[in-house]
């Protein structure tokens, strides 16, 4: 009680100070009050309460932060090569970035979906979408490695993805851009209305392995799909997508796709789609898309080109999809923890409509439609509506939820987070963000069991929040305490890449399962050297394979001779360490490549095409021990026609070297 009184007194005082100072221009330091520092301080050696898995936007990566400290722990490369650990550079990981367009080493990663069981986070996998070259990826929350990437055919750009169902049955992938699909794709752009189609892919997740494959694809009218959420609880079996450009504009969308007062939320009954498939009503069509998998026991990825996909046409197969009018250019489309309410945020609307799943079902049963759009029934707006949040702010984008029945919506234009009650639709509180918030995240916010406590803002503009670093500034996030009635700004923290969506999960669901080492006994890499006795060098034509071992603090072999110009040399380096956090690195002079980083018990391969005669040094690139600087060796490269025999050794002192120089 005392502390509450104290706090009230403090707030009153703070209010008075603010009132006195309110005429002064606001600086970036404003809005932090009270015990903020105490709430975000994680003492040295202590752990954060939540993992925050954050998309990296145009860096194509995922990053991992601690909440409440905002400390960055890891960058996980997903759709982009990563020099720090050789992802996409090592021979083992290159296949992960293969697509139907060949090797694509950079993409734009927007959204995170954490796996769920019974509507709650289960701490197994994080999924992410590749926006530009349409793909989805699965990252293990045991190893924090990208284990699988699946390309999506007939997609113009995978933005509306990878949202997940309550038991991880499916993740979805809705095309952002409708495009001509099928055999006739060389058509005038102005024939959008006739020829351009959207697709929504339902990607089936194997419940044990997490392995993905496209269960089916829905063909849709040509519009832009933006975001999505699965139903849950009573609405499990349904998916909701926001659609814009129902004007079907193909140029100057800024003007031409913002004409109508309302676009649509698309409701998809995926259980119905499954019924049609069971009846054999899907159509297999030719497609070309890559499916890339990491084999955990060989530490090696492989890429397979797929050739067909199962499609359903909802204009023929009725009752799969329905449109619900929604003002205006909707962006976020979020279902509340109960599964009853669907919150749609029209980017250009001055209100937030909240739809009721029960009412949608009733409207469908009563055929309470206002007409059809491109052969799909359109439910009457009022018949689906629970109510509208009036005058919430400008430019609503995304909504997350707490465990107390409240929603938190981000407002890009008015740069704030607004808290409101889902049932009463009453605005309860608002706080400014610095600046122009995009996505936001409440731990467990998209699940049936939010953990509340914090909301994190991922801002689009950083401006004056940090020491300037030229025109290009850090990206930024902000942490707010939402445990009380009033939201409280606690912390600014910089982020890597442009953060779009993020999820936060209690550390207790992830930390106990974290892999510490790869067991050397279980390493089935074909070029592994499981012990120095297996270290060797082999020639296969002009390929030279070095089976190398690394352990503190030497490489075996460390003297290699007999390589010739024209050879391609593969250094397969096995880290023999079996201790947590003892990686070794490997680099050789002149390699047109990044270094590689090898985790304990792992084998990774660096390809080197020597381009000059001489002796090239190689060394360990990850400081590993007091004798790290001694962890080095030499490879001798001879002329193409040379008859120097292939030989290798470690610790062998030749006779000629023993005699001291005269």
């Amino acid at each position, binding site marked *: 009680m005392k502390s509450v009184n104290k706090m009230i007194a403090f707030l009153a005082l703070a209010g008075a100070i603010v009132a006195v100072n309110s005429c002064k221009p606001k600086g970036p330091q404003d809005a932090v009050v009270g015990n903020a520092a105490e709430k975000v301080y994680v003492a040295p050696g202590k752990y954060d309460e939540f993992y925050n898995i954050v998309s990296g936007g145009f860096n194509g990566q995922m990053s991992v932060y601690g909440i409440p400290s905002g400390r960055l722990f890891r960058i996980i490369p997903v759709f982009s090569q990563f020099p720090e650990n050789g992802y996409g550079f090592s021979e083992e990981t290159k296949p992960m970035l293969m697509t139907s367009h060949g090797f694509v080493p950079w993409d734009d990663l927007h959204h995170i979906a954490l796996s769920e069981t019974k509507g709650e986070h289960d701490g197994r996998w994080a999924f992410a979408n590749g926006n530009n070259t349409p793909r989805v990826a699965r990252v293990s929350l045991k190893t924090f490695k990208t284990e699988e990437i699946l390309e999506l055919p007939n997609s113009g750009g995978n933005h509306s993805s990878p949202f997940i169902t309550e038991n991880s049955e499916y993740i979805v992938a809705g095309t952002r851009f409708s495009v001509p699909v099928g055999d006739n794709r060389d058509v005038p752009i102005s024939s959008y209305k006739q020829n351009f189609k959207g697709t929504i892919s339902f990607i089936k997740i194997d419940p044990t392995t997490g392995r993905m494959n496209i269960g089916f694809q829905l063909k849709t009218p040509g519009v832009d799909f933006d975001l999505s959420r699965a139903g849950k609880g009573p609405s499990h079996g349904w998916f909701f997508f926001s659609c814009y450009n129902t004007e079907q504009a193909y140029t100057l969308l800024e003007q031409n796709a913002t004409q109508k007062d309302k676009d649509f939320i698309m409701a998809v009954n995926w259980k119905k789609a499954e019924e049609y498939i069971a009846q054999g009503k899907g159509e297999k069509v030719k497609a070309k898309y890559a499916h890339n998998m990491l084999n955990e026991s060989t530490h090696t990825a492989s890429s397979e080109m797929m050739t067909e996909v199962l499609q359903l046409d909802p204009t023929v197969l009725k009752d799969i999809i329905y449109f619900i009018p929604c003002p205006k250019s909707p962006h976020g489309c979020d279902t509340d923890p109960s599964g009853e309410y669907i919150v749609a945020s029209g980017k250009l609307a001055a209100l937030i409509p909240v739809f009721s799943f029960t009412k949608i079902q009733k409207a469908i049963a009563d055929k309470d439609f206002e007409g059809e759009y491109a052969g799909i029934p359109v439910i009457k707006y009022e018949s689906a509506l629970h109510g509208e949040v009036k005058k919430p702010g400008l430019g609503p984008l995304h909504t997350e939820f707490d465990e107390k029945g409240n929603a938190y919506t981000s407002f890009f234009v008015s740069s704030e987070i607004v808290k409101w009650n889902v049932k009463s639709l009453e605005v309860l509180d608002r706080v400014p963000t610095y600046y122009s918030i995009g996505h936001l995240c409440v731990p467990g916010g998209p699940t049936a069991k939010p953990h509340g406590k914090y909301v994190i803002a991922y801002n689009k503009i950083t401006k004056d929040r940090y020491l300037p670093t030229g025109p290009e500034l850090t990206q930024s996030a902000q942490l707010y305490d939402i445990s009380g009635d009033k939201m409280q700004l606690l912390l600014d923290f910089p982020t890597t890449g442009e953060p779009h969506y993020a999820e936060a999960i209690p550390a207790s669901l992830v930390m106990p399962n974290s892999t510490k080492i790869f067991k050397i006994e279980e390493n089935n890499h074909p070029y592994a050297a*499981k012990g*120095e006795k297996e270290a060797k060098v082999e020639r296969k034509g002009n390929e030279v394979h070095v089976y190398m071992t690394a*352990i503190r603090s030497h490489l075996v072999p460390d003297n290699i001779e007999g390589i010739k110009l024209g050879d391609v040399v593969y250094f397969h380096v096995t880290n023999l*360490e079996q201790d947590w956090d003892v990686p070794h690195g490997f680099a050789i002079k002149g390699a047109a490549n990044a270094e590689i980083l090898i985790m304990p018990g792992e084998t990774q391969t660096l390809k080197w095409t020597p381009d000059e005669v001489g002796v090239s040094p190689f060394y360990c690139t990850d400081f590993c*021990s007091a004798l790290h600087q001694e962890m080095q060796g030499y490879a001798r490269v001879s002329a193409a026609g040379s008859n120097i025999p292939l030989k290798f050794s470690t610790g062998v002192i030749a006779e000629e070297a023993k005699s001291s120089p005269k």
Partner: protein
Amino acid sequence: MKYCVILAITAAMFSCAPDKSKMNNEQYPDQSSGKSAVEEVIANPTKGIGAVKNVTLKSPLEQERVSRGLAIYEMKCAACHKLTDQRLVGPGWKDVTKRRKPEWIMNMATNVDVMLEKDAEAQKLLELCLVRMPNQNISVGDARDILEYMRSNDGEK
């Protein structure tokens, strides 16, 4: 402090007690036993610190263990330990079974971080070699196999 003394006395009492019925060689207490490291140092000055309290050695050597121990040696130990008395990264293994109690060897292999922290003999080796022996994820069963291989390396039959 008082508590430690009591513990030490209790431990001493137990260590004097006659051997319980012989444990199966494969059965060892859980590595994360509840006892504090300090207590075990007092109880076992030459046996090291860890899960291994008493090892029963058989004669002749158990050949299955010797060959398993050799395989583990080649995969996880040979990079740093020679079979002669020559030091590479760590000390050579020649005669190690004559210098150390079997329990100390097995505790060093399975509980190396604690050993380097608390065991005076292990610390002497670190001062000599200057490279911390890595935790090679060796189970107590593995360590027993390695020990048998060391005995074979030291000429036991």
